[in-house]
């Protein structure tokens, strides 16, 4: 894979993590007492 492909895929993974962290945190908070 080219460095450009790696960079864009890395950014995609980072972006998806950024989009899902708040959702997952809300799910985690909902499991607390």
């Amino acid at each position, binding site marked *: 894979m080219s460095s450009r*492909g790696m960079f*864009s895929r890395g950014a995609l993974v*980072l*972006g998806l993590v950024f*989009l899902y962290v*708040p959702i997952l*945190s809300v799910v985690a*908070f909902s499991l607390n007492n």
Partner: protein
Amino acid sequence: MPGFSAKTGRRIVMGIPSLWLIILFLIPFIIVFKISFSEVRLAMPPYAPLFEWINGRPAAIKLNLANYGYLFTDALYVSSYLYSLKVAAVSTLFCLLLGYPMAYAIARSSPTSRNVLLMLIVLPFWTSFLLRVYAWIGLLKSNGVFNNVLLWLGVIHQPITMLQTDFAVYIGIVYSYLPFMILPLYANLEKHDHTLLEAAADLGARPLTAFRRITLPQSIPGIVAGSLLVFIPAVGEYVIPSLLGRTDQLMIGRVLSDEFFENRDWPVASAVAIIMLALLVLPIMVFQHFEKRSLEGAR
């Protein structure tokens, strides 16, 4: 269909959105514009009428320009406008820096993966907007997830203030508007002819040069569309800076809301809204004018 020409069909197709815009944009805009020239008064509605009627006829018009003068002389409004423009510009830049490679990766993936990835981009936005902003409070506060993780890793020794800072506002806006950047960029990048990049590589161009001279110029319409979709709502953003932002520096959306609902000064609030609209619309119109001229020059 007999008696139903193409011209009539075209008029109906054009007429429906035009009517929609007239009812939901033009008429409210004219009302707000009219109120912005009124004087405030303790009554219902809380502004004086613009026209004085005698025997059913408008006898005099009372234009109050002081509302606009007030906005340019009071430091609160000037700093709020400048702060809003700065926050919107920086957020748009971050959205572009994160959204462009994401859209590029999606456009270069296989057709099956593309649909899944696009769904993954849109899926978080099926949950409540307010809930997602509140989730950031839980992550960014002093005893929140990020501070706890950083303390546990030993990166920091005491919690750092992330909530109620510009950083939190940028995070909130980039998070909320990222799909508005990715989707138009993807729509643009997906149409690019990949053989151009292969030809550039065959002719000895390095990948970065090929990107800079082929992909980037072709994707400018997508960048402009995405940037406008992020920048325009970000300038007037109210919820995100209210929940995550600073208390000593307000964005113009908050100032507008306070003028309407706290001070009940509808004329000044309307003037704030009109100036905000002018600040957004005029640069866009100038930009489109020059873009049209450059396109005509290219032909």
